């Protein structure tokens, strides 16, 4: 626990909050990249270098772009005329607060029971690679299947049925 952690946590949470609260959708998308970046930095702080950089590559490099595309594709740049929050916003807020309360309680109550290891684990990318095609080969293939399915599904869903004959 040190200053860096607090800064990063604050950055992440601020990014998250800004995402939820900002009006302009593109601003939200940019704010969420800040949250992603903060998370990536937290990963780095947790000595998960590979995961941190992968987070930046995938989330900031690809998911954020995708979100931005989606916003532009749905005319999201314009500010909505009748408010950005749904009518049941209060209920949502209550649920979120409740969930946080439960989670926080669970964390505080249980975490001290978990044995903790404070030495820095020495994990190289090579270890990850070996694990990937070794122990985790089945999840790997499943992820491949999932990704392929997701490609096909997302493309089919998003593809515009071309009306003009080609």
């Amino acid at each position, binding site marked *: 626990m040190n200053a860096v952690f607090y800064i990063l946590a604050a950055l992440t949470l601020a990014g998250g909050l800004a995402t939820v609260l900002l009006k302009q959708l593109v601003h939200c998308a940019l704010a969420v990249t800040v949250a992603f970046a903060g998370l990536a930095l937290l990963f780095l702080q947790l000595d998960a270098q590979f995961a941190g950089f992968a987070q930046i590559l995938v989330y900031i490099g690809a998911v954020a772009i995708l979100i931005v595309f989606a916003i532009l594709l749905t005319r999201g740049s314009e500010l909505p005329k009748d408010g950005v929050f749904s009518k049941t916003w209060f209920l949502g807020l209550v649920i979120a607060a409740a969930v946080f309360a439960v989670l926080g309680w669970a964390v505080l109550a249980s975490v001290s029971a978990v044995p903790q290891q404070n030495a820095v684990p020495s994990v190289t990318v090579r270890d990850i690679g070996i694990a990937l095609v070794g122990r985790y080969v089945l999840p790997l293939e499943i992820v491949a299947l999932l990704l392929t399915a997701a490609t096909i599904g997302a493309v089919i869903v998003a593809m*515009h049925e071309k009306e*003009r004959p080609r």
Partner: protein
Amino acid sequence: MTVVENKAERAEGWNRPQVIEPDGEGELLEVAMGPHHPSTHGVFRMDVALDGERVVRLKPVFGYLHRNHEKIAEGASYLASMPYTDRLDYFCSLTNNWAYALAVEKLVGQVVPERAEYIRVILAELTRVQNHASSIGFLIQEMGASGTPLMYAFKEREKILDLFESLTGSRMMCNYMRFGGCRVDVSASWLDATRKVVAGLPAFVDEFEALLSSNEILMARCQGVGILRPELAINAGVSGPMLRGSGVNYDVRKVDHYGIYDRFKFRIPLGDHGDIYDRYMVRILEMRESIKIIEQALRDLPAGPIMDTRAKLRGFRPKPGEAYGRIEAPKGELGFYLISDGGLNPYRYRVRPPSLINLTILEDMCLGHNVADVVLIFGSVDIVLGEVDR
């Protein structure tokens, strides 16, 4: 070639641009390209509606350089219009001069001495070479080649302009031809210099071709883009390299037998696809033919006077009547239509600008293409705004 007579096409509205329906996804983006736009060769504007990047509507807007050439000419003497013709197609002042002189000569029935005819041919073909080189340079510039082909074209153009300047006194606005001949005679040293420049031209065209013709990017961007069907080209009055790029064998030099073009051996290159690449290649090949013509003219140049002895500068009053004279200018058929009422000024003075009329089918060629192609198609028409808007 003979035009394919397709009767089905002669149905009502066959010569109108096709209507392109947007595919319903996304909205149309209406962009004005021009009047200040890097690729419009000056002050031209195209109001483009884009469906994605596909052009579904294109309306050219003219007149940003409408300088009232015709109105001024109707208030000025016949001679005073000559320097104004320089400023029509400011790349090719000499061919403009010639077209105007030809129209006036037709009107009054003047005969041009043989030597002057040869000089006119030499100058017109030099003009054609430099115009085609620069227009290709501009076309490739639009394709984004950082100006290198344009630089090479202008390097050669400067040599030709040097010739023009040492003969006529001005680089661009030559104001050289007169009704019934030319203003000053060529000197032996000028002819030598011309021979030298002309001798260097084939190497220049070779270099140009090596740089561009087989470039994959250029081929990919130019082939199959901006196709103009020959029937439509004729119906729309398209002329010059554009018409020949569509495969129509029509060259005013061969058809009208004006000047002394009958005496020279040259061929008319024709394209088969009518796309940008064909227009580009037709220009390259025409440059080669022009070089041949100049060489022949330089070889055969006779001695003699350069002005019709009956010609007069001041107080020039043609008999009432009218005449339409046209030549094959580098950009196409350039015509002048004059009506004389017997006065000092033409009663009606009309320029038939190839650039404007070649733009008639701009929309037809652009529809359905990418917005980046519009720029190229426009460049391949080879226009000069001075002539389009006059």
